[in-house]
């Protein structure tokens, strides 16, 4: 890495450790479920952070790729009895491939149009999973997906070893994102995000950088999907409107803050519905209120962090000019 490391505030180090240890204290199925679910959403958020926070792509269709990964993993496991590591990776790879195809014909367009196309693609994927009865069983979904099985050990249920597996995955994703963020590729993306014209004039290939970021983002989104499939052992055509919005709101909040912010946003918005459960009927209303409050007032806190990062990025851009450009 040839740029000054961002100083990692100590508070962000303390929190994840507490959160990882938390489920082990409670020994409770329900807590573990939330913890595992949060982990899946953290991966989704990190993927979105890459696409939106680093590269400035507005991806409104993330839920579609999420569902694609889930269905791919499910079908490969059920129809062809492929072992877990393969189905797991396949979910990511298939999403990445479709993402690549989508990027090929839409990445040249300006941000908003790309957003609209991504939304359309997600809707198309959703309808296909709903009506392609022969393959996806339509609304009845695909039950009975086998649980993860590594080296002969089957993770039978929602228990502690399962959570450890998830934590490992989250760590791998996080480290990948961190590495990207501090690499030349990351710098290029940031430059593109801030101004495509400026980036182009610096000789950065805007199209390919954005495409690669998008493909990587879709890969991790698909991975999250395959994990969803093996976790719930059931996938149905529910990756639609409301799911899209849930994922989007988390991601957008996460995209604004730095990488740790993305993680926090995911955890917060996964546990929030659970905390709000006693409100019964009014739960969704409260959730809506919270969303609004968070966006409007959370900005002032998150906004400062973003400004600081931008300042650092500007220095890095100068660095880039001197250091030469070697991004594909």
């Amino acid at each position, binding site marked *: 890495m040839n740029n000054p490391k961002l100083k990692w505030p100590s508070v962000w180090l303390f929190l994840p450790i507490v959160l990882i240890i938390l489920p082990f204290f409670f020994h409770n199925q329900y807590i573990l479920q939330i913890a595992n679910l949060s982990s899946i959403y953290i991966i989704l958020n990190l993927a979105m952070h890459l696409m939106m926070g680093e590269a400035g792509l507005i991806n409104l269709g993330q839920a579609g790729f999420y569902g694609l990964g889930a269905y791919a993993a499910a079908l490969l496991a059920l129809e062809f009895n492929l072992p877990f590591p393969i189905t797991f990776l396949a979910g990511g790879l298939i999403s990445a491939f479709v993402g690549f195809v989508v990027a090929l014909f839409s990445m040249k367009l300006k941000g*908003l149009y790309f957003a609209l*196309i991504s939304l*359309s693609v997600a809707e198309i994927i959703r309808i296909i999973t709903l009506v392609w009865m022969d393959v996806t069983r339509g609304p009845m979904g695909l039950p009975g997906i086998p649980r993860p099985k590594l080296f002969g050990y089957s993770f039978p249920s929602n228990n502690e070893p399962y959570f450890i597996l998830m934590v490992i995955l989250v760590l791998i994703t996080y480290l990948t994102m961190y590495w990207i963020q501090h690499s030349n590729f990351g710098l290029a993306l940031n430059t593109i995000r801030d101004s495509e014209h400026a980036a182009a004039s610096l000789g950065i290939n805007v199209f390919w950088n954005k495409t690669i970021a998008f493909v990587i983002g879709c890969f991790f989104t698909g991975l999250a999907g395959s994990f969803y499939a093996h976790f719930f052992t059931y996938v149905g055509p529910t990756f639609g409107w409301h799911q899209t919005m849930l994922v989007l709101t988390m991601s957008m909040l996460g995209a604004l803050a730095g990488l740790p912010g993305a993680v926090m946003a995911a955890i917060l918005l996964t546990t929030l519905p659970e905390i709000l459960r006693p409100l019964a009927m009014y739960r*969704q*209303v409260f959730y809506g209120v919270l969303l*609004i409050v968070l966006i409007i007032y959370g*900005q002032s806190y998150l906004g400062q962090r973003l400004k600081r990062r931008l300042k650092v990025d500007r220095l890095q851009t100068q660095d880039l000019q001197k250091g030469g450009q070697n991004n594909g």
Partner: protein
Amino acid sequence: MFIQQLFNGIMQGGLYALLAVGFALLFGVLRLINFSHGSVFMLGAYLTYIFITNLHFPFLLAGLISIILSGFVGIVVERISVAPLRKRKMPFWLGMITTFGMALIIENLSVTIFGGSYRSFPTPIKMVGFEILGAHVTNIQLLTLGVAMLLMILLVLFTQYTWLGRAFRAVSQSEDTSSLMGINANLIVALGFFISGVLAGSAGILVAMYQNIVSVNMGLGVGLKGFFASVMGGIGSIPGAVLGGFLLGIIESLTSAYISADLKNVISFTALILVLMWRPMGLLGKEQL
């Protein structure tokens, strides 16, 4: 049979167009995807239902009051979820999340207050069917299409020929410049939400009349259709939204008729993608981004 299918498409398209137009108004002015459009749509219909059934208002009065109330709900949405963002100069796409929050609030409060089942919507007019060019049409269908067209024409006239309409277009082109010209942008935005709310509420009442049914869930898919139509027709273009709406209705109808009803969304969204690839600003849109 083709004529009948075409008619079906046009009827449905008229309703989509009305939805799209209210949507496009805000999209054009603020680049805002207003996710609460569907909720206001539902409120317009449901409030009318309540006024007629529980308060025994006559139909026209109930409808008028609901429409005006819908406009005010639009303003409430703006005050709570959009104005704070504009004040702080935040990126426009955050408005998506806050309006989505408003949608959650409105829809779920409605479910709690009104209950989740669908209800029969009291239609004041007796249905009379007749044949035009070999296709079956009813008087209610023609009425809803007529009212929808009237509202849309009024809106186009408004934006093209009145002072207020010009102010709208000015603000959508550049907020800063128009402020310099003495236009109070905040007022314009609030007015925009009012009009958008009125249109959404009217659309809700028309659809409820058309189907005889009202339910708290009727707004859910609506946002997507309105959004689709206004994008396809052209961002920021009201006539474009109208065109987009009719196109959507016709595409859906013909797909249902000749291919398969399941696939109508797939086909329509593919069409959208193709249009965007070829002409990103939409069929009638002007390059404004």
